[in-house]
């Protein structure tokens, strides 16, 4: 069930990513919404949920791109699995640890993704440390915010309902 919801979230993230890419071409490099969803799913659902979400999201992302199908999937699978392991082994309930996990997950994803391309001699990549760091930062911020929003959203609804009830009385 968790995996299904995670897959659904990944699909939404893909739609968001592709939508925003059409509007803000440069801005899409700052945040990888699909990767954020994968890490989020891994932290909340565990390793299997994380790797399945990463596999699905990565493969779809690969098929929609011009790259080799599987490299992005492999990178996101690894990240999802590791993030799931971290989420089960450590307490990642505060914003800072979550920020670190998202940040490091983005770095690992970049290393695997670009590393595979370089290893297979498919493309020549210039050192993109700044871009990767920026994306890691953006992903971490979006991820932490997403966590906060999801955690605050049910309480906010309840509080809003309770406030409406008091006003009517």
């Amino acid at each position, binding site marked *: 069930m968790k995996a299904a919801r995670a897959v659904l979230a990944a699909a939404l993230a893909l739609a968001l990513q592709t939508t925003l890419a059409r509007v803000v071409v440069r801005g899409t490099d700052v945040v990888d919404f699909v990767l954020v969803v994968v890490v989020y799913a891994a932290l909340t659902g565990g390793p299997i949920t994380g790797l*399945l979400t990463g596999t699905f999201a990565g493969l779809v992302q690969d098929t929609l791109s011009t790259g080799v199908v599987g490299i992005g999937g492999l990178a996101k699978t690894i990240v999802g*699995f590791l993030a799931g*392991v971290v989420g089960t082994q450590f307490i990642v309930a505060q914003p800072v640890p979550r920020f670190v996990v998202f940040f490091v997950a983005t770095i690992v994803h970049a290393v695997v993704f670009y590393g595979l391309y370089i290893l297979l001699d*498919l493309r020549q990549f210039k050192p993109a440390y700044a871009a990767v760091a920026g994306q890691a930062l953006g992903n971490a911020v979006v991820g932490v915010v997403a966590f906060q929003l999801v955690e605050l959203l049910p309480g906010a609804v309840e509080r809003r309902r309770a406030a409406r009830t008091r006003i009517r009385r």
Partner: protein
Amino acid sequence: MALLDTRQRAGYVFLFVILGHVILISAQVNAKSGVPVLEAAAFGVFAEVQRGTASILGGIRHAWSGYVGLRQVRAENEVLRRQLAEAEIALQEQTALADRTRGLERLLELRDRSNLLTAAAEIIAAGATPDFRTVTIDKGTREGLRPDMAVIAPSGVVGRVVVPSASAAKVQLLIDRNAAVGALIERSRAQAVVVGAGDEWLRMEYVSEVADVAQGDVVVTSGIDGIYPKGFIIGRVETVEKSGGAYKRILVKPAVDFSSLEEVLVVLTPTPARKAAEEHSQ
């Protein structure tokens, strides 16, 4: 336990998914050689399997051929060993034949040189007892041998015929303790009698103290005994000692090596003394 199962299951799923991704990537990516990575990897793995199989088969074939070859080599080795043994025997026969030929040539030279009627004989047996130094030769009365005929060799005097049979004869060697031969010193012409000592040496007796005899002098037959022709070598003076009496004590080394004697000549021509004795008896 449940946590462990969950971890294990996650690990298996992770590995399975990773393997699937690798296969998927490999199917699309070409290697530097232009061949897809999956094909190259599969070919590489299969090539290693082929290499291993070929290596095993090659090893088996090599071992089998080596085994078969070893068997052939063993059989060939046995044949070669047999041939080598036969060749060694043949070589020994040829060597012996050559030695015998050379010996016979020396005997022929001796016969031509001595102008004596001789009969070549081969030593077929040694003495029955070490107390008497005798040999048996393969010629007897059929070839004209008679008692007291001289037996000589290219190197010197051997002895005399003592007991002839129809086809063989017993020869008393010069070194026998009962043997004696009239002798003289070739250089000084001093006369004496050489007798056997029963060992490897000869004694020269009845040599006057004033006689000129020195170490190394050649001792030859004098011919006065009626058995041995004159002028045949007996040996060389080894030592000369004063005995304190009328005669010198002289040791002679035989010219003939009796231990390696194989062929001899029997002198059929009677010496003048013998001829005179026979004429006197008739």
